C-alpha cells in the first residue's frame, strides 16, 4: 500500500499518514475494575483480519477511520468518525 485516501484531501502517499491503532471502545473509568482497565490499556487484538483503525493525515491534521485488511494490506474504505463510539 502506497496510497491512502484521506476523506478530506483525497488520495495521498502513505508517508503523509500516521497510524494510531484499532478503534476500541473505552470502558467507563469510574466503573471499570482494575482488571478491565488493564485489559483496555494493554491488551490488543493482534490477530489478522479486517480492522477499523484510526489514521491521521498529518499535514492537515485530519483524523479519520480506515477499514483495512491487516493480512493483505488492502484498505476497504476510509471515512470520518461519526458520533460516539
Amino acid at each position, binding site marked *: 500500500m*502506497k496510497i491512502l485516501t484521506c476523506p478530506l484531501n483525497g488520495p495521498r502517499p502513505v*508517508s503523509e499518514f*500516521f*497510524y494510531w*491503532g484499532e478503534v476500541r471502545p473505552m470502558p467507563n473509568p469510574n466503573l471499570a475494575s482494575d*482488571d478491565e482497565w*488493564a*485489559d483496555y*490499556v*494493554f*491488551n*490488543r*487484538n*493482534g*490477530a*489478522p483480519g479486517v*480492522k477499523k*483503525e484510526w489514521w491521521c493525515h498529518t499535514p492537515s491534521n485530519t483524523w479519520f477511520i480506515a477499514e483495512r485488511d*491487516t*493480512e*493483505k*494490506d488492502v484498505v476497504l474504505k476510509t471515512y470520518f468518525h461519526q458520533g460516539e463510539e
Partner: protein
Amino acid sequence: MPWRLLRFALNKKHPEPRMFTFHEKLKPSYDVVIIGAGGHGLSAAYYLAKEHGITNVCVLEKGYIGGGNTGRNTTIIRSNYLTPEGVKFYDESVKLWQDLSTDFDLNLFYANRGHFTLAHTDSALRTMRWRAEVNKHYGVNSEVVGPEAVKEAAPMIDLSCAGHAPILGALYHAPGSVARHDAVAWGYGRGADQRGVEIHQQTEVLGIDVQAGKVKGVKTSRGYISTGKVLCAVAGSTPRILKMVDVKTPLYIHPLQAMVSEPIKPWLDPILVSGSLHVYISQSARGELVMGASLDPYELHGTRSTLDFVEGLSTHMLEMFPFLSGVKVMRQWAGMADMTPDFAPIMGKTPVEGFYLDSGWGTWGFKATPVCGKTMAHTLVNDTPHPLITGFSMDRFRNYALTGEKGAASVGH
C-alpha cells in the same frame, strides 16, 4: 545407470543421510508439543532432550525449519541492555552462544566483532552512560567511548554524519558478535533430532483442544495429537495461536525489514548501530553489508518489502558512509515482529494450564535463542518459571509492573 544402484536408491533401508530424520506419520500422543521450528522452538526441544531427558517431543512447523524470523534477522548478538532483568538474561545467552559451535559440532560462523551504539545527542550519550553502568554492575563488558574510538574501529565513517548528526560518542560492547542464523536452527534441530525429538515440517496447527482450562491436544493439518503440554514459539504468528486458546495479550505485529548489499571487500569489522539515524550495519563473512532500520509504521501480518524502506535506509547509510554511494543493494526482505508495549518479551505460563508462551520477541529475539530454549525447557518441566524469566511474565501488564527495556533494537526511544 546400473540397475543395482537404482535398486539401492529406491530401497528405504538405505536412505540418503539427512540432517533431519523424516517421519512419515505423527504419533497419537507426545509429552510435549512445540509449535514453531524456529531457533526458539528447536532450542527448547534440544534442552528438553539434553538436560531433562524428555525426548517424546514433537516440533510442528507450518513452513520449513528456520524459515521465519530465525532466518530473517540481522544476526547480531549482544547483552548491553538497560534493565537488570534484560542484562542478566541476555548475558546468560551470550555465554551459551560462545560454546554452541562445539556443542553442536557445527560451524555457526560465530564471530566476535565488537558492537558500537552511536550517540548523536547529549541525551543519547547520557543513556549510554546509564547502560554502561548497569552493564558493568552485572559484569557485562560495556563502556562509553569517544568519537575517536569509533573512527579507529571504522575509519571510513563520516563522524559528522553529513554535518547534521555529529557522533559525540558511543557505547562500546566488546562481546558483540554475529553468527550464521540458519545454522543455529539447524544445529539445535539436529541435536534434538539425534536425541529422539520429532520435527514435522509442513504441518500446520489448526486448533488447540482446551478442556476445563487444560490443554488436551493439538489439531494439525495432518491429524490430531493428544498432549498435556504445548509450547508456542511462533513469533509473528503468536496472536493467531492465542486466538485458538482465547488468551489476551498486548502483542501487536509490525513488519521489520532488512536488506543486504552486494558482496564487497572486508572493510567493516565492528557492528555499528545508530538509534537516531535508524541504522544498524555489519559486514557478513561473505562480504555483504547486512543492514536494518526501524519497524514499519503500521500493523501488518505479512512479509512484503517496500521501496520506501530501501530509500530511507540508504539515505542514512550514505550519511555515515558516503563512499558506499556506488554499492548496489542485492536483496531485501521482511519478518513479522511480535511487539510488546515495554519492549521486553512475554514468557512463561498462561491462564491455560499446560499452555506455555515464548513470545514478544519483536526485534530482539535472535540473540536470546539459546537462553530462551534453556529457560523455557526448565519452565515446561517444572511447571514454574525459570528465575531468569520471572520479570517477563504476562501478569506484569495486569499488575501495571512493566519492564521498560529501552535497550532493544529498532525501536525509537
